[in-house]
Structures are given as C-alpha cells and as structure tokens.
C-alpha cells in the first residue's frame, strides 16, 4: 500500500489548471487596432459591376476628404413592372451612392462643392472608376460633364502592373 502522502498528491493532480486568458483581450485589441488603421470605411455601395484597367504609371491617391467617386459599369435591370424579362446589362454611371445620368453630374458636383470648405472645393478630385470594357463615348460624356462643372482633377482609377 502506498503511503498516505502520495495519495493526496494524486488527488490534487486531477484538477485541471485553469488557463490564464487575461492577455487574450489585449491580443485581440492589437489585431483590432491594426485593422482600424490599415482599412478605411466603405463609403458607398457600388451598384454597378466593374473591373478597372491596369497601368504601369499609377500612383496612390491621397485620402483627403474632397474625393468624389464616379463608377462606370454594367448594371442589371431584371424587372420592369414585375414582368420577368431576361436580364439586360447596360452601362450605368454611379456618382458616390446613387445612379445618375451624365447630364445630372454638373448639378450633383456643384451640390457637393457647396458643402465643402473653399479650400477643399478647390482640391476636389474625381476618382473615375470605369470598367475596362466601357465605351469611350459614355466616359467622355462624363468627362465633359465634369469639365462643365469645373471638377478638373481626375484620377483614372487602375490597378498597378508590376514591372
């Protein structure tokens, strides 16, 4: 028979030591802060489908507040008065969050400019994200509308090709 002392010892071993999770929130907070710094809030929902072209001379656009996003892509309009018709894909222009026609752009731009401070209105940059298959006719309509509303800084959004 075992001595008394070793019996007690065995019983103590049956308790599973609790894991110290005190530093777990700290770890997760670190990851959280990392994500908060490297990402930025999604400003608007993109309602059109697009794929930007690729170029070698692209530069990063500085994230100052005076940026207007214009998306040119295909949208799907599947329903007309509840009738089921085959999905028609047509080229659509979206300014920030809403779908617009090129003719409406000058009014929207001046509305946006009115809300900005004078120095930001001067720095207003339009980030033009157009699909690579978009026809130039539509793109130049948009460009002409921007020209009329004196939004002359344009960023042709693209992905970078690494040489």
């Amino acid at each position, binding site marked *: 028979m075992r001595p008394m002392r070793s019996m007690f010892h065995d019983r103590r071993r049956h308790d599973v030591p609790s894991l110290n*999770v*005190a530093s*777990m*929130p700290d770890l*997760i*907070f670190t*990851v*959280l802060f990392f*994500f*908060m710094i*490297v*990402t*930025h*809030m*999604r400003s608007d929902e993109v309602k059109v489908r697009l794929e*930007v*072209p690729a*170029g*070698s*001379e*692209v*530069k*990063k*656009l500085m*994230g100052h507040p005076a*940026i207007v996003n214009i998306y*040119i892509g295909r949208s799907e309009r599947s329903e007309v008065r509840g009738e089921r018709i085959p999905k028609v894909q047509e080229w659509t222009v979206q300014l920030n969050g809403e779908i617009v026609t090129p003719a409406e752009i000058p009014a929207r731009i001046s509305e946006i400019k009115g809300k900005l401070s004078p120095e930001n209105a001067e720095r207003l*940059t339009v*980030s*033009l994200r*157009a*699909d*690579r*298959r*978009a*026809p*130039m*006719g539509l*793109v*130049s309509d948009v*460009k*002409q509308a*921007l*020209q*009329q509303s*004196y939004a*002359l*800084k*344009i*960023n*042709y*959004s*693209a*992905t*970078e090709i690494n040489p």
Partner: protein
Amino acid sequence: MFCKRYRQQIPELNTTSTADISFMLLIFFLVTSSMDTDKGLLRQLAPPPIEHQQPQDVNKDFVVQVALDANDQLTCDGKAVTLQELQEAVTAMVQVNRTGHVVSVEADRATTYEAYFRMQDAIVGAYHSLREHYSQQHYGRPYHRLSGDERAIVNDYYPQRISESLHSQKGGAR
C-alpha cells in the same frame, strides 16, 4: 484575525468575456471597412472652352496625332503603332521641341476604356521617363525623392502638353 485577512483580499474580476466583446468589435470592423487603396492616373482636365474662342494655331511639325478607332487600333500620325512605339514617338517629339510640342489625342466613341487608359498610361510614361532622366542628371536623385519645389522645376522643364478632343470640341490638358 482570520476573518480580517479574508476581507482584505480583492475578489478577482471575471474578464473571460472581454475577449468575446473585442472579437465582436474586430468582426464589425472587418465587415464594414475595405482594404482596397485607390490607385490611379491623376490627370488635369482643361477648363471648359469659352464661347467664340479662337483655337490656337500650332505648328503641324510638332504635333503627335494619336488616335484610337472603334476597334481599339492605336494610330500615331496615321500609322498603326504599338504602345511601346507610341511612347518612343512621344519621347522623340518632346526631345525635338520640349515646350512647343502637342500630343493630340482622339478617341472614337466605341473605343473601350481600357485601350484609352493604356494610351494615356503610355503617354504619361514617356513624360515620366524624361523627367526621371532630367532629375537624375541635375539632382542626382530619382524623381520621387525630389522636394516639391524641385519637382515643379522638373515639371516645368518637361511640360505635359496633351490636347484631348471630347466630341469634336478641342480642349487642352496639361
């Protein structure tokens, strides 16, 4: 005496759920934020043309006529070219007449945006390599490491003179 000692012990705070709370915050940020950085080619459009403005005359010898047709065929001065050849043609013209040349760009309405973008990219690439060369020669540093004033000097030395036509109306872009 034993009783008193017990009272002085601070009860441990249960922090097991803090991890869950911060996980929820983390997931919220992952869902609502996006990581894509906005990269692109920054261009300046010309101001809208004033009524009855006389178009400026430029010497035909110093104009590079770049055009894109409906089938995305790139032509430079009437000849079909590749992007590489276009870049070389623009570089050559800038070296001939640094401040007086004009790159005239025309695109058909049926051209795809990608072809147009690549053409712009090639033209800007030609200017970039010239500016890079100048910067290396005069400052001994690559262009992206120059200060703001030095950049302005280099940009003025090799100005981008690109004229774009939007629907038959001619407008110059710098």
